[in-house]
C-alpha cells in the first residue's frame, strides 16, 4: 500500500469485496430499485417492541442471511467494522455483541459504509487481517424519533428535505482474490467541511461540499478525471444536493457527464413523497450492495467511484446554533 498525495491510499494487492447483501423496508422495496432488492420486510417494526430494536434485528438478519447463504463461518472473520446513525452506535454495538468477534465501531453518519470499507481494505492490505465484515444501517422511524419529532406528530416536510432509508447493507472484504468480485483499488479519506448550513432538513446542501472536496482531492492525488470511470455514485445527497455537487465541481472546471448517480436520488421515485430522495447510513449501503455491487459482478460496470456523504451534527449542536459539518469518504472499485 502506498499513499498518493494528501488523502488517497492505493492498495498494493487487490482487496476483494467477496459478498454483499442488502435488506430493506417495504417503502424501499416499492421504489425504482425494486427488482434489485431481493430481501425486504413488510412490517416496519420487524416484530419488535421498539424501532431501535427493529433496526438492530434488521442488521442482525442481514448479516446472518449473508453468512448463511454463502456458508461463511463467523469465526473465519477477523474483524467487524460497522456504523449507523443512532446515538452511541447502538445498532452496530448490540449486533457486535451477538456476533462475538472483534469490533470497531465507526461513526461518520451516512458515510459509514465507505468509511468501514476503506478502513477494512487498508487493514487487509496492511497484512493485519484476512477477512473483515462491514456494515451500515438506518431505520426511518428510529431516526425520526431521535433526530426530529414523534411519528404521530403532525408536521409538514420541507420541499428540500429527505427521507431516511430503512435498510441494512453488509459486505465481506477479503484478502483472497476472486475473479468475478469487485476489488477496492484506492480509498480516499475526506476532510470535515462546514459551509454554514443550519437547516437540519437541508442535508443535501450541507453534504454536497464535502463530497466535492473529497472527489477533487482524489482526482488531484490520482491524476484521474471523471471520464475515467464508468460510474460515479454519491451516497445520499438527494436531487438538490447532487445538483449542488455538480455545480461546485463545474466551478472548479471538473465536468461530470452522464456517468453520475446519487444513491439517495435513485432509491425513491417521485410518487413516494420523499422530496429530494433518500438519506441515512442505510441508503448508500443498500444501493451499493444490491445495485452497484451486482452490476459490477456482472461486469456491466468496470470502474466505479463510491462517495458516501455524512452530516455530522447532533440535535444538541443544532439547537445551540452550530452549523452542520459534513464528511465524505471515497472508495474506488474495479470489477
Amino acid at each position, binding site marked *: 500500500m502506498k499513499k498518493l498525495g494528501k488523502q488517497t491510499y492505493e492498495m498494493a494487492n487487490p482487496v476483494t469485496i467477496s459478498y454483499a447483501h442488502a435488506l430493506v423496508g417495504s417503502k424501499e422495496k416499492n421504489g425504482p430499485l425494486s427488482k434489485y432488492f431481493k430481501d425486504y420486510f413488510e412490517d416496519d417494526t420487524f416484530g419488535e417492541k421498539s424501532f431501535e430494536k427493529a433496526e438492530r434485528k434488521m442488521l442482525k438478519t442481514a448479516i446472518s442471511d449473508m453468512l448463511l447463504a454463502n456458508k461463511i463461518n463467523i469465526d473465519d472473520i477477523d474483524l467487524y467494522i460497522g456504523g449507523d446513525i443512532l446515538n452511541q452506535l447502538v445498532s452496530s454495538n448490540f449486533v457486535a455483541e451477538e456476533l462475538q468477534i472483534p469490533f470497531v465501531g465507526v461513526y461518520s453518519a451516512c458515510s459509514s459504509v465507505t468509511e468501514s470499507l476503506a478502513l477494512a481494505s487498508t487493514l487487509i492490505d496492511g497484512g493485519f487481517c484476512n477477512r473483515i465484515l462491514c456494515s451500515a444501517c438506518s431505520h426511518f422511524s428510529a431516526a425520526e*424519533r431521535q433526530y426530529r419529532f414523534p*411519528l404521530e*406528530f*403532525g408536521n409538514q416536510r420541507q420541499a428540500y428535505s429527505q427521507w431516511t432509508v430503512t435498510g441494512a447493507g453488509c459486505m465481506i472484504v477479503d484478502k483472497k482474490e476472486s475473479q468475478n468480485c469487485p476489488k477496492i483499488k484506492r480509498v480516499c479519506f475526506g476532510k470535515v467541511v*462546514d459551509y454554514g448550513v443550519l437547516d437540519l432538513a437541508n442535508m443535501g446542501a450541507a453534504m454536497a461540499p464535502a463530497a466535492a472536496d473529497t472527489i477533487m482531492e482524489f482526482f488531484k492525488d490520482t491524476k484521474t478525471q471523471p471520464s475515467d470511470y464508468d460510474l460515479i455514485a454519491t451516497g445520499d445527497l438527494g436531487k438538490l444536493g447532487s445538483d449542488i455537487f455538480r455545480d461546485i465541481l463545474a466551478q472548479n472546471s471538473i465536468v461530470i457527464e452522464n456517468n453520475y448517480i446519487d444513491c439517495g436520488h435513485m432509491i425513491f421515485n417521485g410518487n413516494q413523497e420523499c422530496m429530494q430522495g433518500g438519506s441515512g447510513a442505510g441508503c448508500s449501503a443498500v444501493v451499493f450492495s444490491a445495485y452497484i455491487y451486482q452490476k459490477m459482478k456482472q461486469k456491466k460496470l468496470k470502474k466505479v467511484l463510491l462517495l458516501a456523504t455524512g452530516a455530522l451534527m447532533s440535535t444538541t449542536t443544532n439547537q445551540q446554533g452550530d452549523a452542520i459539518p459534513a464528511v465524505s469518504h471515497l472508495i474506488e472499485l474495479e470489477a
Partner: protein
Amino acid sequence: MNKSQRNQDYLMYVEKQSPKSPWLSSLFRAFIMGGTICCFGQMIGDVIKSFFPTMDLLTVGAWVNISVIALTIILTAFGIFDVLAKYGGAGTFIPISGFANSIASCAIEYKKEGLVFGVGAKMFYVAGPVIVNGVSYSMLVGIIYFIISLF
C-alpha cells in the same frame, strides 16, 4: 476568500437553488383546514348549547376546546392526525388541536422508554414551550393588572 464570506455566498446560492414549497396552495389548505376545525368547534358549541341552554358562553367555549382536544388525541392514537396535519399545515397546529396532538404524539412515542421517564418526562417535549410561555405571560398580565388596580 475567508470562510465566513465563502459560507455566506454558499448559503445564498443554496437558498436560490432550494425548491420552494408551493405557497399559494399551502396557504389555501391551511385556510380550509383551520376554518373547518373552527366550524366544527362552533357546531359542537351549538349542540352543547341546545342541550344546556342556561350554560354561560365561557363554559361552552371550554367544552368546545375539550371536545376538539379529545377528538384530536383519539385521531392521533389511531394514526390519522398526522395525515391530516400533512395536508393542513398551520391549519392543524394553530388551533388547539395542534397542542393536543403534540402532547399525545409524545406520550405515544416515548412510552417505550417507560411510564416515568418516557411518558412522564417527555410528554411536553414539543408542547412544553406553549405551556411555559403561556403560564408566564398570564402571570405577567395578572401581576400588572393587580398593580394597576391598586391605584
